[in-house]
């Protein structure tokens, strides 16, 4: 296996494209230039840091280090779910629901992948566990945040329709059926679209990375297909659990709609 090693000047040259984007933002008065630069710097710092952290953890090959880093990744992804929602619950549920469901879905699928599919030695080998978890978290996080946001926005927007059903004696399951279906569709759509477009419209990042690193394309494709199935499973499970949990929290045992459990402010601004 051989690959072309990139130098720091190569990265600096690639960064010119970000400057071009910033210039376009200025030219069209999009107001994105500051966020673009901050995001680019953040990405470099985060990826640089994780590169060193992974290098250190890979050398340790210790379950404690692997689990520890996995927990940090899960908590940061949970924070990201919260940040992406325009409407959120109050109290523990603000972070708790998205983080807990994402953790359950991603780690369940990760354990399945490590124990039944990849079977590394040892099974917790960080070289396999952490990149797989990262890909699962990234996609599950997107699905859950979209699903939760869709349901909670819909509960606010369609309050009169939901309460009309409740007032007529419908159960909370009946009253929230359509908003829940819409939220499940919204949360699942990115991975469904990604699978449909893979190989035709886009070459997935992981597969491209493996090919650039010298792996045979057919072997890289096999990994990519496995990853897409894993992501699809984790996203479906995570979105279903998160949306069902949110629907349960949006109503109570008397089948009333409880919008008072949402933070009053709209965070879309």
């Amino acid at each position: 296996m051989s690959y072309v090693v990139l130098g720091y000047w190569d990265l600096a040259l690639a960064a010119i494209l970000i400057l071009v984007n910033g210039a376009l933002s200025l030219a069209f008065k999009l107001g994105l230039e500051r966020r673009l630069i901050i995001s680019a710097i953040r990405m470099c710092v985060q990826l640089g840091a994780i590169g060193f952290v992974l290098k250190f953890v890979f050398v340790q090959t210790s379950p404690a280090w692997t689990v520890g880093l996995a927990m940090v990744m899960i908590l940061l992804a949970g924070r990201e779910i919260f940040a992406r929602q325009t409407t959120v619950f109050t109290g523990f549920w603000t972070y708790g629901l998205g983080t807990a469901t994402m953790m359950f879905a991603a780690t369940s699928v990760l354990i399945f992948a490590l124990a039944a599919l990849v079977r590394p030695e040892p099974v917790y080998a960080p070289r396999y566990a952490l990149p797989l978890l990262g890909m699962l978290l990234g996609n599950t996080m997107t699905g859950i945040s979209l699903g939760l946001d869709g349901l909670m926005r819909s509960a606010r927007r369609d309050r009169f329709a939901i309460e009309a059903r409740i007032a007529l004696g419908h159960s909370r399951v009946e009253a929230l059926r359509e908003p829940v279906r819409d939220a499940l569709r919204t949360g699942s759509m990115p991975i469904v679209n990604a699978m449909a477009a893979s190989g035709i419209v886009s070459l997935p990042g992981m597969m491209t990375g493996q090919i650039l690193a010298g792996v045979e394309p057919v072997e890289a494709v096999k990994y990519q297909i496995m990853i897409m199935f894993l992501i699809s499973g984790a996203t479906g499970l995570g979105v279903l659990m998160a949306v069902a949990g949110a629907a349960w929290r949006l109503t109570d045992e008397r089948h009333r709609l409880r919008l008072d459990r949402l933070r009053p402010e709209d965070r879309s601004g």
Partner: protein
Amino acid sequence: MKKDNSPASFGAGQPGHSVRLAVSDLSVLNLSPVTLVLHAGQCAVLEGPSGSGKSLLLRAIADLDPASGAVALDGEDRGALSGPEWRRQVRYFSAEPGWWSERVGDHFTPSDEVSDLLDAFGLPADAMDWTVERASTGEKQRLALVRGMADRPKVLLLDEPTSALDDATAKAVEQQLLARIRGDGAAAIIVTHDEAQAIRIAQRRLAIQDGAVIEVAS
């Protein structure tokens, strides 16, 4: 099964009728605890300035919002029933009716009662084929009445049910409402800002004054 033995603080209503709806010390935001008794066939009007808590009181009776206090129907505390079971008997009609499907007919279970009510409220039979968008505000208000009355709930909690109707249509709807309430032996509380309407339909007049529900002379 809990039995309600709370005394009526006012408004014993028509003697000889069995108690239908008993509200005891119901706490609603900004209001003193509310106690009242409403009998079969009785129509009470609830008046008060905007924002005084009229809608919240009706919603609390229908168990749409959490509220402390006791509410019972025919002596049975609502806690003995599930929320949906309670609301099939004690129904709140919002001033702004909601629709969960594009087609009007999707909100109804076809029945002779629906056809009768459509006719009684001056709506054509083909209204079931309309889209909700196509209906005017007044038509939607009457369609919501048909939808909510078709399964004959025992208590109707009507929040400004004719606010979007012209005078003539409002009077016709009132007459139908009263006839149905009496015919079914139901009880009703109707919120209105229309003094003339209150005089026309009220057997009892309730008002919110200084954060308390009081009974005023009919």
